[in-house]
């Protein structure tokens, strides 16, 4: 059989061109840049983005995103971002002093503004010689996993708006994420049912949404896990125990050993339920929530 050499050459050329690296323009290769302000939003955005977006979570691992504030150089970078996903509900306190475009900001909790909790007791402090009382909204909305689902939906909508051509894939991933969050919500509901009648004390007033969603009989202190409670703080706890006889004290992080011993002496079991504001060394928001459920299950059974 006679073979036409020109056809062989043409096929080879097609093969070479087809296998070579794809020529992309700079706009094609540039991924939309999305800034997030806490771990739950980072987790949702990463899960939904699927590599189509560049997700930036600028808060250092050792800082609480609620108390963090960006430097001017970072604000300049954020000003150039395509999207800034905010937790809302007063979580980003720095936002009132920073200038970012409104067009790129998305408040993921705006759909449930009426459900935002306010700190009951205003923390009073003095500055400038005069006392000021500052009360404000509670930020940890995601600890109510139903609200977390709504926030994930807001992330989905924002990403779809930013890259409509990836809408189908984003929605597909969103369904999977919603299913995971729903499963966690069901598990959390089941676990907390064990404590419906049992009073619980939290070391910090950050569990408001969790207590409301899962009907937990919770009272809060204002203790830091790293600190050893003072005499006054222990007296305050004793006073609280008189009206709220809890057997469990929920900490945000592993408590100081001495603190754990002191509360143990008062008949309290210390457990860690992380608020999941920042990214853990291993895993993400979802794995942290699973650990929280396990810790609660062990303490409440």
């Amino acid at each position, binding site marked *: 059989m006679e073979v036409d050499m020109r056809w062989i050459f043409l096929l080879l050329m097609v093969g070479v061109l087809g296998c070579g690296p794809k020529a992309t323009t700079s706009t094609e290769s540039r991924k939309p840049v999305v800034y997030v302000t806490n771990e739950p939003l980072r987790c949702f955005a990463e899960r939904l983005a699927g590599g189509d977006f560049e997700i930036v979570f600028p808060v250092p691992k050792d800082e609480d995103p609620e108390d963090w504030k960006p430097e001017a150089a970072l604000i300049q970078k954020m000003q150039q971002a395509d999207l800034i996903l905010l937790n809302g509900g007063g979580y980003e306190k720095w936002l*009132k002093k920073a*200038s970012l475009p*409104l067009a790129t900001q998305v408040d993921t909790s705006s759909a449930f503004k009426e459900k935002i909790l306010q700190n009951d007791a205003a923390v009073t402090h003095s500055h400038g010689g005069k006392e000021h009382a500052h009360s404000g909204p509670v930020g940890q909305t995601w600890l109510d996993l139903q609200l977390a689902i709504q926030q994930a939906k807001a992330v989905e909508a924002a990403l779809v708006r930013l890259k409509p051509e990836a809408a189908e894939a984003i929605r597909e991933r969103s369904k999977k994420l919603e299913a995971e969050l729903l499963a966690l919500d069901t598990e959390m509901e089941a676990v907390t049912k064990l404590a419906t009648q049992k009073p619980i004390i939290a070391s910090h007033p950050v569990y408001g949404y969790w207590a409301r969603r899962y009907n937990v009989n919770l009272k809060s202190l204002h203790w830091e896990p790293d600190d050893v409670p003072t005499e006054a703080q222990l007296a305050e706890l004793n006073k609280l125990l008189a009206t709220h006889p809890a057997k469990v004290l929920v900490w945000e992080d592993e408590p100081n050993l001495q603190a754990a011993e002191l509360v143990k002496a008062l008949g309290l079991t210390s457990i860690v339920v992380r608020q999941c504001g920042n990214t853990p060394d291993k895993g993400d928001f979802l794995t942290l929530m699973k650990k929280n459920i396990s810790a609660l299950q062990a303490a409440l059974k």
Partner: protein
Amino acid sequence: MHTLYLAWRYLLHHRFKTLLLVLVVAVTLFLPAGLLVLAGQGEAELTARANATPCLLGAKGSPLELTLGSLYFRNVAMPAMPYGEVDQLEESKLGLPIPLMLRYRSQDDPIVGTSLDYLRFRKLTIIEGNHFTRLGDCVVGAKVAKQRGLHSGSRVLSRPVDAFDVAGVHPLNMRVTGVLAATGTPDDEAIFCDVRTTWVIAGLGHGHDNVTKLQPGQMAPYNEVTDDNIDSFHFHGDEATFPISAIVVVPTDEKAATRLLGRYRKPDSTLQMIEPGVVMGELLATVVRLKKLALTALTLVGLCSLLLVGLVLLLSYRQRQAERQFLVQLGAAHSRVYMLMLSEAVLVIVVGALLAGGLTLVVWWFSPAVLRAWLV
């Protein structure tokens, strides 16, 4: 060719008379043409910014004042409206709201409290420094920077609303973080900062400086946001109730624009949403009527002037009877002599028309800048 040369030589010989005739023709043609160009460019100048601003939301009152205040930063009475409207518009997803707080000035330059979206919307770029990043920062328009010698790192001080506002608004010493590129619009003459910075000027937010730095009874001459005191700055009250002057609304699409306009047309609404292009169009409709009157008057004057030119040429023709006869005696054909006279008249009209054209070009070239300074 000879005829034209002879006509040209004749006109040069009678320089003064020729110049007078050329000027009359030039002025007669230039006045209506120049007015048309000036009016057209004035119209374009006024409507360009208005047409580039889809919708404006403000407190109920004069739509024209809302337009002039928000678009050209004119010092007009603009009743305040609550910032909460920005949140409501954001939630409606019908468009991008850009707040404007226009109450304050630094010397005579307007301070525009807004969001960075305004700079993007007007395509204002930074040629020196950076955008404002925090409370107390500002960027300055090209003209302000040039006139006041401002650069990135300079300071500008807000001034009280009026000279007798001694106990009221405390001046804010703002940090200039950048200078905007010139655009030939009112933005060149303004100072831009975050809307919250204007609330600090208004006294709705404040920080707590180290009072030990001051002597007893001494008061800081102005407020200032610094690296040391920024953390102490806070606002008292609900931000949604804080005042702004207007909101530029960029609807997502035409349907959204219609819905937005309808939303604020309710009789009980305390706000009005206007289309600045329409408002300026109505204003210009009045100007166009005046322009037509002026053009008619100028055309009549022009006609009279041309008739006078004709009369002058006719008289000149009669006066030059002896000259014509002399040319005929020299052997020139009658037709050539008439052609010579006609060429002189045509040359006068052509040179006059060219001069009018040149003047009109000058008006066309320089009028945008003059109009900008005069109109806005």
